[in-house]
C-alpha cells in the first residue's frame, strides 16, 4: 500500500533539518583527513587556505600572525564603519553634530566609534610590523616579488583610509590636519613658484583641487573624503587583499627555510615519499588535498610535516582575530576617541598634529613641504617597492635577518639610523638652518638642502657603503630598511612628544607656554 500524501509530507518535514544541512555542507563531520580537506576546499570563504598547512608556518615566530591580524582589523573596521554610517551625515553643518550624537546619544555608539578608531590605529601598527616581518625574513624574494608590491599597495591604501577618515568628524583636529594634508598635495607649487612656471604648469594646484574639489577645505572636500573613505578605498583594499591572499597560495605558501623554489612558485614536482596515484582516482581532488602526489597547485609538502588546515590553521587565525577584537574593545572602553571643538577655519590648533603615524612625515614637512611631504615619501615608497627586484640573492625565506651577518648589519644600521635621525632633528633645533644662517638664500636651496633630504641621503650612503663592504645586496637592503625604520621611529617620537606650540622643541609637555 502506498503512503498517503500527508505521510510523505510529514516524512519530508521530519527530514527537513538534515536535508537543509546536507544541501549546505557537502561533506562529513571534519574528523578524517579527507573530510577536513573537504571542509576547507568546498567552502567559498575557506578555500583561500591550502588544505594542509606546514608546521613551520604555524609557529608563532614564523609570522606572529600579523597578516591575519591586519585582516582582522579590516573586518572589525568594516563592521563598525557600517554601523557608524547609520547615523553619520557627511555635511559640514551636520557632521559634527552627528558625531556628538553617535558619541553621547546613540546606544553603544560611543563604543562602536572608539573600537573603530582603535582598530584603525592597531591596523596601522600591525601593517607596519607585518611589512618588517616579511622584509627581515627575506619573504619578498623570488617568487614573491609581486606580492611584496601588492603589500605596498595595501600599506598605502591603509594610510589613505586613515587619512580620509580623519576629516569626517569635522572638528578642529580634522579640519587642520586635512588643510595641511591638502596643502602638501599642493606643495609642488613651491618648486614651480621658484622656477616661475606655475602659471603654465601647476601640478600642485591640480592635485589639491582634485582632492578638495575647491581651493579650501569645505563641503566638497568632505563629500570627496567620505566617498573615498566608505567606498573607493575599502573596495580597493578588498580587491588588493584578495590578490594578496591568492598570490600567497600561488607563490607556494609562506616562505620557510629548506624549501627549494622555482620561479613559478612550485617546489619539486614529484616527492618520492608520497604514495602514487591509483589510475582511477579523481586526480585533481586528491592532488589538492595533498594526500597523494600528482598535479597539484604549488605544493611541495612533506606530508609528515603538515597538518590539516582545519582545524589547526583556522584555530590559529581565530585566536588572532579574537585577540584583535579583544584589544580594540578593551582600548575602546578605556580610552575615548578624541572629538575637539567644531572646525573653525580662522583659528588653527596649536600645535596642530596629524595622527601619530604621520608625525614623522610632519617632522619632515616642517623642513620643507615639497621635499618632506612628497619627494622623500615617494623615494621611500619606490625604494621599498624595488627591493625585491634589486636584491636577487637567493637567501632562504623564513630566516630572520638571513643569519648572523644580517643581524649584525641590522644592529649597526639601527645605531646609525637612530644617530643620524637624532642629529637631523637636533642640529636645526639648536643651531637653526639655512634661512637663519643666510637670510637671503634662494628658496631652491631651502627646498633641496634640508635635514630631511640630508637624512635620506645619509641612509642611502650608508646602504651603499654596506654594499661595497659586504658585496651583498641582501645586507645592503637590510641596512637601508633598518635605517628607514629607525628614522621613522625617531621622527615619529619627536613629533609626538617633543614638539609643542608653533612646532617648537620642548623636552616635556609641562614646559609648553601657558595660554
Amino acid at each position, binding site marked *: 500500500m502506498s503512503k498517503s500524501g500527508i505521510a510523505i509530507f510529514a516524512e519530508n518535514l521530519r527530514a527537513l533539518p538534515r536535508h537543509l544541512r546536507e544541501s549546505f555542507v557537502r561533506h562529513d563531520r571534519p574528523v578524517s583527513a579527507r573530510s577536513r580537506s573537504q571542509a576547507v576546499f568546498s567552502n567559498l570563504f575557506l578555500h583561500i587556505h591550502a588544505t594542509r598547512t606546514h608546521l613551520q608556518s604555524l609557529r608563532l615566530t614564523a609570522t606572529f600572525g600579523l597578516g591575519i591580524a591586519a585582516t582582522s582589523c579590516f573586518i572589525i573596521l568594516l563592521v563598525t564603519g557600517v554601523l557608524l554610517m547609520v547615523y553619520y551625515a557627511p555635511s559640514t553643518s551636520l557632521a559634527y553634530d552627528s558625531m556628538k550624537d553617535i558619541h553621547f546619544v546613540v546606544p553603544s555608539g560611543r563604543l562602536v566609534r572608539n573600537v573603530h578608531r582603535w582598530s584603525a590605529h592597531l591596523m596601522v601598527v600591525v601593517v607596519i610590523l607585518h611589512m618588517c616581518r616579511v622584509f627581515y625574513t627575506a619573504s619578498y624574494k623570488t617568487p614573491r616579488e609581486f606580492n611584496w608590491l601588492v603589500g605596498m599597495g595595501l600599506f598605502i591604501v591603509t594610510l589613505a583610509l586613515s587619512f580620509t577618515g580623519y576629516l569626517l568628524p569635522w572638528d578642529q583636529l580634522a579640519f587642520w590636519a586635512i588643510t595641511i594634508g591638502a596643502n602638501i598635495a599642493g606643495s609642488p607649487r613651491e618648486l614651480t613658484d621658484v622656477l616661475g612656471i606655475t602659471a603654465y604648469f601647476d601640478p600642485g594646484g591640480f592635485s589639491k583641487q582634485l582632492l578638495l574639489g575647491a581651493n579650501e577645505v569645505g563641503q566638497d572636500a568632505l563629500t570627496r573624503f567620505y566617498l573615498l573613505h566608505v567606498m573607493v578605498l575599502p573596495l580597493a583594499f578588498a580587491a588588493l587583499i584578495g590578490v594578496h591572499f591568492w598570490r600567497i597560495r600561488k607563490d607556494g605558501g609562506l616562505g620557510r627555510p629548506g624549501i627549494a623554489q622555482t620561479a613559478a612558485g612550485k617546489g619539486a614536482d614529484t616527492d618520492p615519499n608520497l604514495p602514487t596515484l591509483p589510475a582511477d582516482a579523481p586526480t585533481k581532488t586528491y592532488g589538492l588535498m595533498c594526500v597523494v602526489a600528482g598535479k597539484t597547485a604549488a605544493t611541495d609538502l612533506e606530508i609528515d610535516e603538515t597538518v590539516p588546515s582545519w582545524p589547526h590553521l583556522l584555530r590559529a587565525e581565530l585566536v588572532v582575530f579574537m585577540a584583535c577584537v579583544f584589544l580594540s574593545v578593551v582600548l575602546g572602553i578605556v580610552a575615548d576617541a578624541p572629538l575637539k571643538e567644531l572646525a573653525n577655519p580662522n583659528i588653527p590648533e596649536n600645535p596642530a598634529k596629524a595622527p601619530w603615524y604621520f608625525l614623522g612625515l610632519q617632522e619632515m614637512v*616642517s623642513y620643507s613641504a615639497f621635499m618632506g611631504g612628497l619627494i622623500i615619501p615617494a623615494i621611500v615608497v619606490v625604494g621599498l617597492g624595488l627591493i625585491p627586484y634589486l636584491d636577487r640573492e637567493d637567501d632562504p625565506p623564513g630566516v630572520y635577518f638571513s643569519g648572523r651577518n644580517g643581524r649584525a648589519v641590522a644592529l649597526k644600521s639601527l645605531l646609525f639610523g637612530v644617530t643620524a635621525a637624532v642629529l637631523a632633528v637636533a642640529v636645526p633645533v639648536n643651531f637653526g638652518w639655512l634661512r637663519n644662517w643666510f637670510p637671503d638664500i634662494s628658496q631652491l636651496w631651502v627646498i633641496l638642502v634640508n635635514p630631511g633630504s640630508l637624512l635620506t641621503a645619509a641612509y642611502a650612503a650608508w646602504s651603499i657603503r654596506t654594499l661595497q663592504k659586504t658585496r651583498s645586496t641582501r645586507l645592503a637592503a637590510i641596512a637601508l630598511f633598518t635605517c628607514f625604520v629607525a628614522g621613522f621611529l625617531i621622527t615619529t617620537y619627536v613629533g609626538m612628544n617633543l614638539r609643542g606650540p608653533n612646532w617648537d622643541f620642548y623636552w616635556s609637555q609641562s614646559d609648553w607656554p601657558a595660554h
Partner: protein
Amino acid sequence: MSGRLESEPIARRDFLGLAGLWTTAIAIGGALLGMVRLPKPSVLPEASRRFRLGRPDEFPPGTSKVIAGQNVLVVSKPQGIAALSLVCTHLGCIVSKNEAGFSCPCHGSAFDGDGRIVAGPAPRGLRWLQVSAAVDGRLIVNAGNEVDPGTYYRV
C-alpha cells in the same frame, strides 16, 4: 587581377574581428577619458574674496587690526593702508601676530612685521592683498588679488 587581394597579410575575417575589437576599445577608452575629467571641478564653489573694510578714518595711521573671519590683517601707516593675508604660505595654517612679526603654529615658520620670511619651512613671505576704495569711499580688500609686498593704498 587579384594582385591586391593576394598581398593582403591577414584574412578578411580576422581583419573585421580586429577592426571591431579596436573600435570598441577606442570607443570605451575615449568615453572613459572623457569621464575621468569629472572629478576636476570646473567651477569652484567659493564665496567672493572681496570684502568691505569700512571708512578710511576707522584706520588712523598706527593701527593694525585683524579682520575677524577673513584672516586678514589691516595695517595703517602714514604712507597708506595695506592688507596682509594671515594664511601661512607653507601649508595654510593661520599665523598669529607677536612682537617680532608673525609665527605659524603648525610648523614654526616665522615672518617679520612686513611678512617677510625669517625662519622655518615656508617657501615665501605672507601675501599682500589689494586694497582699494569703493565709490562711497569705503575701503575694499580683495583677498583674491595679490600685490607686491610694500604696496600701500593712499587714501
